[in-house]
């Protein structure tokens, strides 16, 4: 699509007006790749600022400069300012004799429980013992879903592989109970039973549902997990921004503690269902500045990747 900048060849010094049609085309291109509309606009503005007033001789230099500048912005957005190194942190917790706790949250149906199970598999492959806490006490089948995963994971890593010890357990109290309380019991159990990691599953909830957002904030405030992961699907459009802003806000507003815990990282799921429409990755990281810690690329346990920023940027620029 860079050919739209062809008309600008030889212009005396680029003005905003001269750039506008080309920038509009670029904005549409990003939106078609599923970047949220206002974020696409912000990206265009930042490219415009970099280009304004520049005198560019040939088409190739303009196209090149635009591409470079967009490329730079995208890479910058996707590059984590902070590294989340779960394996290292789990080892550290292990030395301190306490379980490392990860809480999963997000809206309904995005893949929290499934990716929790995939992360559990990854931790088990790395030799850790995991306790899964079934804190979705609302959705029909949520507990059985985790029970099934626990049984399957346990079959993949039988005690015989781990010195006679089971390396995954499920902590569950059925339906209808207070999730925060169950999480706390699970963490205590893990400490006693010397589990290395506790993975806390929570019920899906809409970001505008205040009672449910309060309940989540309470669960996190009371249990102060080591890592709060927001699970979002790559299919989501403009809602990506609203979801993240409001989850963060709710955790901050409703926690009643001095330094509230907010989202530490993102799990971007269903990445296998979107072809090159990878824009949600940009919308989510731009909004929070938090890293995408895992990318879900399918429905089985090994379908978990780290983000390939270069590949995402290439797909966006194509």
């Amino acid at each position, binding site marked *: 699509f860079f050919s739209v900048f062809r008309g600008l060849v030889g212009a005396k010094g680029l003005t905003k007006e001269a750039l506008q049609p080309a920038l509009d085309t670029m904005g549409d291109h990003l939106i078609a790749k599923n970047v949220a509309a*206002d974020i696409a606009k912000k990206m265009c503005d930042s490219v415009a600022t970099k280009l304004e007033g520049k005198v560019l001789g040939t088409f190739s230099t303009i196209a090149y400069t635009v591409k470079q500048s967009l490329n730079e912005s995208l890479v910058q957005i996707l590059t984590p300012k902070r590294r989340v190194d779960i394996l290292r942190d789990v080892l550290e917790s292990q030395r301190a004799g306490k379980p490392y706790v990860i809480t999963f949250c997000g809206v309904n149906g995005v*893949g929290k429980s499934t990716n929790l199970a995939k992360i559990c598999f990854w931790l088990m492959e790395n030799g850790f013992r995991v306790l899964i806490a079934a804190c979705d006490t609302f959705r029909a089948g949520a507990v059985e879903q985790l029970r099934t995963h626990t049984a399957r994971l346990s079959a993949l890593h039988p005690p015989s592989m781990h010195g006679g010890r089971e390396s995954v357990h499920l902590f569950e109290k059925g339906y209808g109970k207070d999730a925060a309380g169950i999480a706390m019991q699970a963490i205590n159990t893990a400490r006693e039973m010397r589990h290395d990691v506790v993975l806390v599953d929570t019920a899906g909830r809409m970001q505008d549902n205040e009672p449910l957002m309060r309940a989540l904030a309470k669960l996190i405030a009371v249990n102060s997990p080591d890592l709060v992961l927001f699970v979002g699907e790559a299919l989501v459009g403009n809602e990506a921004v609203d979801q993240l802003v409001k989850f963060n806000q709710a955790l901050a507003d409703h926690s009643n503690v001095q330094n509230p815990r907010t989202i530490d990282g993102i799990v971007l799921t269903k990445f296998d*269902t979107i072809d090159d429409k990878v824009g949600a990755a940009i919308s989510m990281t731009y909004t929070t500045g938090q890293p995408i810690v895992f990318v879900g690329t399918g429905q089985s346990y090994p379908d978990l990747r780290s983000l390939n920023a270069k590949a995402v940027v290439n797909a966006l620029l194509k």
Partner: protein
Amino acid sequence: MVLADLGRKINNALRSLSNATIINEEVLQSMLSEICRALLEADVNIRLVKKLRENVRSAIDFEEMASGLNKRKMIQSAVFRELVKLVDPGVKAWQPVKGKPNIIMFVGLQGSGKTTTCTKLAYYYQRKNWKTCLICADTFRAGAFDQLKQNATKARIPFYGSYTEADPVVIASDGVDKFKGENFEIIIVDTSGRHKQEDSLFEEMLQVYNTINPDNVIFVMDASIGQACEGQARAFKEKVDVGSVIVTKLDGHAKGGGALSAVAATQSPIIFIGTGEHTDDFEMFKTQPFIKKLLNMGDIEGLIDK
């Protein structure tokens, strides 16, 4: 729904026409930009938005139009005609027939809300005194049968499924045979979530479809979906004969504009919307009354069909 929410913005944009002293290309373009931005922010497919813009533009001929009043009316009705096209595929919604088995198959992407919505629909018909049942033909998702079973039990709806049979085709066909034999009128079949990139999943859907030969296939879409909807919806339609759309999770903040491209891609009407996780968080959606309501907003009443 996107158009309802857009009402205000569109009204504002249209009002800019009334406020302008002369209506020229510039005024029209700026109004169109405003409307298109609102549509894109609501996730409406970008190609549909571009088409809407072109169609409105080409419906207006400044040379030929006489008075300012006329111009306004023409522009306004051109805008509405195009907006209506987004929700109205121009086909009548499928209706079940009393006294015979009506087989309804649910399909859609992973996590879109199929299983939850199956029970909602069953509950809806059951309350209207149809003999209704549910079949769980999802053998893939962990806990899928428990989920349907718990929902169905709570709503007191007969159900069928299996913990041991791994082939969804076998379960679907056994279930349909059983319930047909018992003279059920509404037989709803839930299937696994799937996506177009995985051929084997689409093949499985086709096999279930060919075996149970449903009277209606319902495509379930999450209201928060973005630009990827169109391609997925089209692929589902190409594989099985989708006849209706249900948009879920409209109780959230999402406007559901992305899901609208499913209407265009499948040429099928939206028949219900999901507005919560509970079984009765479910509303019938009728395209025509919805449009009427949309048109009745404020000073734009009666603009269309003139």
